[in-house]
């Protein structure tokens, strides 16, 4: 088929897909994809290195969110923050892992919807506070049936805590008018000659934001049922 569009750049995508399917080391897969993409469009090696270097320096803001809070979190953990979070929640009789995470989902999504996206996050909220609390609640659920929380169930609770943070953030932030995604959508539509009110885009996001809450909250209810079943087995 004769085509004016160059399809060679897709080689990098193929490398990514193959690498992840073969479960190779992710870092090697990504750097191989970088080199393959450069080679596929016949970029000279030095130009490719320069492109990688420029991009590396330009994206230095990205790891900041993860790196900077770690000193405070690490120190608090050394002196028992996670143990205390776990103990505090296990004193609340009605708390279950699922209910706790539904409350967290509501807070995370609601806060993001009014622009407060920094309430939450994996290094600052999930690892030191929410995951130990969810685990503490799950341990109490198991203890109520006279068993201990299995490793598989513990890992499932942790993974669901991280998932809840992501779902709350993603589907909350997009209904905040001043959020980057809304600005990006407006810019791109304007480039195509279509003028859209950001408020309308934010409003039409609300049905999906509510659906995300309902679907994920329902799954968190199912997490409680799973924990009860595990505890009885």
């Amino acid at each position, binding site marked *: 088929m004769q*085509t004016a569009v160059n399809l060679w750049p897709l080689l990098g995508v193929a490398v990514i897909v193959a690498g992840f399917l073969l479960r190779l080391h992710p870092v090697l897969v990504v750097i191989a994809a970088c080199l393959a*993409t450069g080679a596929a469009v016949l970029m000279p090696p030095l130009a490719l290195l320069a492109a990688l270097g420029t991009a590396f320096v330009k994206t*230095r803001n990205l790891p900041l969110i993860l790196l900077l809070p770690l*000193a405070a979190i*690490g120190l608090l953990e050394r002196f028992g923050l996670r*143990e205390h979070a776990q103990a505090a929640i296990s004193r609340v009789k009605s708390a279950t892992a699922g209910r706790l995470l539904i409350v967290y989902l509501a807070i995370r999504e609601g806060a993001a919807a009014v622009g407060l996206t920094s309430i939450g996050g*994996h290094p600052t909220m999930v690892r030191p506070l929410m995951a130990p609390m969810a685990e503490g609640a799950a341990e109490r659920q198991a203890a109520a049936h006279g068993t201990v929380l299995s490793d598989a169930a513990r890992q*499932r609770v942790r993974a669901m805590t991280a998932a809840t943070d*992501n779902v709350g953030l993603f589907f909350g932030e997009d209904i905040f008018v001043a959020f980057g995604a809304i600005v990006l*959508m407006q810019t791109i539509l304007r480039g195509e000659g279509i003028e859209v009110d950001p408020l309308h885009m934010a409003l039409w996001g609300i049905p999906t934001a509510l659906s995300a809450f309902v679907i994920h909250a329902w799954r968190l209810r199912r997490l409680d049922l799973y924990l009860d079943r595990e505890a009885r087995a």
Partner: protein
Amino acid sequence: MILQLEHFYYVVGAILAIVAWMSATDRTNPRRWSTALFWGLYALIYLAGETLPAALAGAIVVAMALLAGFGGVRSGRPDVLPDSERRASAARLGHKLFLPALAIPLVTVIASTLLKDVKVGALFLIDPKQATLVGLGCASIVAAALACRLTRSTPVQAMREHRRLVDALGWAFFLPHLLAILGLLFTQVGVGKAVAHLTMSYIPMESALVAVAVYCVGMALFTIVMGNGFAAFPVMTGGVGIPVLVGVFHANPAVMAAIGMFSAYCGTLMTPMAANFNIVPAALLELPDKHAVIKAQVPTALPLLVVNIVLLYFLMNQ
């Protein structure tokens, strides 16, 4: 501007340099020299990134990726307090332990909303364009100081704990940065155009429902490949959204854009390419399966994608 992002690049550079030095002198780390080299190179990028020749910075990226990819980045055996001591300290400090942790979001929010517009003389106190990141930087330092005071620890101990967590993350810490580089490279060479071309050439979009499904599923698939909804949105909207949904089926562009972006986010929930949301938390939570978070998210993402298709189909002519 008094406080800007560049200042925190130096903070990060200094932290990474200390991590490198601590790794080099840690005999419990089986690969202490290659580990130290990795963090040292990373520190160099933060301390001198602007002044390095671009090709040299690129060579550093490749070297770091090879070091990390072939198992050269390991951790030492951290010195943690015994369980009993930690529980005793948790009981002694009680709820006070929460304060420095909660200070991080609190100070970030205050800095990024209230202090954003504060001027000292003619200068902004913090860079208004980077208010959230600068706010988080300030918050982290405030929280570290509060944590030191509360636990009567020295800043050196805080750095040791910092290194323990960075060590535990290892290569997972570097992966999101590397993926961002790949994303920029993809954009530069026109991966988006190629994908859009394939989608448009091979899928007939005669009925509104098929066109809506192609737009939403394409958005999610493209995000799975690129790891970022912001990369998928212009391609799918330019390729399918505007010519077909708006042009042929008279969709309301606001509805199309809003639901389209959310469809991309469904993809973000399902891809290892969005490493900072999906792979880093698995490392932070010490999960043996590095795809455990993705597996926890797929059953939310797929039904939500179907809901998006239905919503867009019924709402687009509003």
